[in-house]
């Protein structure tokens, strides 16, 4: 496979990790390090002025020399809210990457395609490297590519569900048509799901819940890294296409009972 390049940055690992839900910052740090992951997502929230005015130490645990840190716009319900969050992230930490995440319904957390496209247009013009989280919609993926997003991040299944590649047929169409990297995001629960996404032709996967909420997050991060690596190597080695009839592996001649 050709190297993964997003917004001019070359990534050596096709596994991206979300930093939510980890039991501790130290576990998160170890999981990231053990996996070799080079891009993580983070979120923006109000400082808790009563309980913790000193703030969350998350950022200090992320080595921005080695890792691309991408704030998300989680919680935003409209393009306006997402744009506001992206601008705040840039003001707070100089972050120029943004994962556009617009989920108006807290029950299914599915992304709003119209608001996402609107926000992408504005943020691309403002110089952000925009990574939009979208439903596995090939038409929307193309429209986002046309407005200049750095990649598209179609979902495998709803966030945090661990269901695996439920959107597989639509993902195949996205992958076949995309001229920008495709990052399969959300819903991947097992390392085999991540491998299947890469084998499908996706450039990369983003995992959060499946790693962070595992009994052993560091072990699970390593397992996902291996699965993604195995799939990448398998793809590079030139897999044969499936066929509908048998093709014998053993010779069909020289049987003992032949006369």
């Amino acid at each position, binding site marked *: 496979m050709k190297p993964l390049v997003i917004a001019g940055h070359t990534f050596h690992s096709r596994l991206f990790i*979300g*930093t*939510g*839900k*980890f039991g501790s*910052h130290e576990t*998160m740090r170890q999981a990231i390090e053990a996996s070799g992951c080079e891009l993580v*997502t*983070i*979120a*923006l*929230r*109000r*400082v808790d*002025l009563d309980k913790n*005015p*000193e*703030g*969350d130490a*998350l*950022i*200090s645990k992320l080595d921005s020399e080695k890792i691309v840190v991408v*704030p*998300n716009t*989680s919680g935003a319900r409209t393009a306006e809210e997402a744009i506001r969050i992206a*601008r*705040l*992230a840039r*003001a*707070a*930490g100089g972050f120029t990457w943004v994962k556009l995440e617009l989920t108006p319904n807290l029950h299914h957390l599915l992304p709003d395609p119209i608001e996402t496209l609107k926000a992408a247009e504005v943020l691309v013009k403002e110089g952000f490297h925009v990574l939009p989280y979208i439903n596995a919609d090939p038409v929307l993926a193309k429209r986002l590519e046309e407005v200049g997003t750095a990649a598209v991040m179609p979902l495998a299944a709803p*966030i945090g569900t661990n269901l695996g590649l439920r959107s597989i047929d639509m993902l195949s169409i996205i992958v076949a048509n995309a001229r920008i990297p495709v990052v399969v995001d*959300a819903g991947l629960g097992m390392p085999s799901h991540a491998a299947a996404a890469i084998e499908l032709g996706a450039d990369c996967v*983003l995992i*959060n*819940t499946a790693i*962070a909420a595992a009994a052993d997050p560091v072990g699970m991060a390593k397992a996902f890294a291996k699965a993604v690596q195995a799939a990448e190597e398998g793809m590079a080695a030139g897999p044969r296409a499936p066929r509908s009839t048998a093709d014998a592996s053993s010779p069909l001649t020289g049987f003992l009972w032949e006369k």
Partner: protein
Amino acid sequence: MTLTVNGQSRSFAAIDNLAQLLETLGVTVGKMAVELNGRIIPSSAFAATPITADDQIEIIQFVGGG
């Protein structure tokens, strides 16, 4: 004076500028963003940004997220 900070109404004795407000609140977050009445204020301008009664202030930090 009364200010709305992170959505909550709070009373302060006397606050002249944004830097003073953050100090009073005990906010020492390394990387954070501040909005004053919907406008982002760069950290270099905190001390030079006056605060007046009824201002709305948002103090934002980074947390874990997917």
